[in-house]
């Protein structure tokens, strides 16, 4: 088992705080989506959780053991980061072998099979690969690592649609054959929303939500129609509902609201909020403002 507990994590860079009082538990064998706008603190969080960075305050434990300076705990975690942590002149195959030295459950056969599927030449030096293939090499390394907890920081950056599709399928395939905890940070929410089991949403260095995606999907809805009709619907709700976003085009008004539709909705179009739309509403600076 591998459960990661994060309590009251803070990270400051000079005067700027990258993470503020983040507490959460990563369950064993679950696929997480780590969502947040640029600069929200996603990479910082993953870097701390994988021991690449030290927190300013707070604690991270893996199965009850503190992460810092603990080889046993660190060995349970693999991180595919944005930066290449290997010497650029290394050959791809060698990069897999070096990783396998640190992760005893590394599946070299699987790595080579994936390399073939993606058309990655393992004899090439890493620095000679294109941006996309550098990412692919890192993805393969992460999928084959065999660690019970794997972090992917922006794994689809620079990948074309076909390779992104392959990656998503590989994640699901690998997950069903060798269950592990995956945390995937991404901006392409729509693409990943169907296989992410839980979403972690960070906004301006703070954790604002950690919930089942299926539940998030049911958390809000959008009402649209003639401005007058929408307004009278809103006033029928009273002050109890939280309005997430309002848009007006001509005489047409569209309002995103937290909660479930209630009362008379005749003549109005009601649609549920997708994970992506909910995310946009939750992380928009002008919440509730027109």
């Amino acid at each position: 088992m591998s459960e990661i507990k994060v309590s009251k994590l803070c990270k400051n860079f000079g005067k700027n705080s990258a993470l503020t009082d983040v507490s959460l538990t990563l369950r064993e064998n679950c696929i997480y989506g780590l969502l947040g706008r640029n600069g929200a603190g996603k990479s910082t969080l993953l870097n701390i959780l994988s021991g690449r960075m030290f927190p300013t305050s707070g604690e991270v434990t893996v199965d009850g053991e503190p992460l810092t300076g603990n080889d046993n705990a660190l060995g349970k975690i693999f991180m595919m980061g944005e930066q290449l942590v290997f010497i650029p002149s290394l050959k791809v195959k060698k990069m897999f072998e070096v990783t396998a030295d640190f992760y005893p459950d590394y599946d070299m056969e699987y790595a080579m099979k994936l390399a073939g599927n993606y058309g990655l030449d393992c004899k090439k030096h890493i620095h000679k690969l294109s941006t996309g293939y550098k990412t692919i090499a890192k993805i393969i390394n992460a999928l084959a690592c065999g660690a019970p907890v794997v972090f992917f920081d922006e794994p689809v950056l620079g990948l074309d649609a076909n390779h992104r599709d392959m990656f998503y399928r590989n994640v699901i395939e690998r997950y069903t054959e060798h269950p592990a905890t995956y945390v995937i940070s991404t901006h392409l929410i729509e693409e990943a929303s169907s296989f992410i089991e839980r979403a972690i949403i960070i906004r301006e260095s703070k954790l604002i939500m950690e919930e089942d995606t299926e539940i998030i999907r049911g958390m809000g809805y959008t009402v649209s129609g003639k401005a007058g009709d929408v307004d009278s619907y809103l006033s029928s709700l009273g002050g109890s509902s939280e309005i997430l976003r309002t848009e007006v085009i001509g005489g047409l008004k569209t309002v995103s609201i937290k909660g479930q539709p209630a009362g008379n909705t005749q003549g109005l179009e009601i649609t549920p909020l997708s994970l992506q739309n909910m995310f946009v509403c939750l992380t928009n600076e002008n919440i509730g403002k027109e």
Partner: protein
Amino acid sequence: MTTLTESDKPIYVQTADWIEDNILSEAFGEETRIPSTTEISVQYKINPATALKGVQMLVDKNIIYKKRGLGMFVAKGAKEKIRETRKQEFFDKYITALISEAQMLGISREEIRQMIDKCFKEGDDK
């Protein structure tokens, strides 16, 4: 069905609907094996736990059943059972909506009948 996330329904319900659609069209015949949850989740890029929830929904409705070590199979009489449920849904979803839209547009009962007849006739001619 190419993606499962465009509809309003929860993904596990869409998964169950997709299996039912295939049973109705006899792509999944009675007493034959349906794709495993792994196959479904990889194909449609959905979380395996979600796919399992959809499959479980149909197990609870006795539409499919588990053969130990072999996988999920379509139950005998499953197609008829789905048809009955869907017929009721058809009435609730389409007929009721049709009548209320027609009333809004001032279309009479007789006009609706003629439209339906016309549609059937055009279908027959093809």
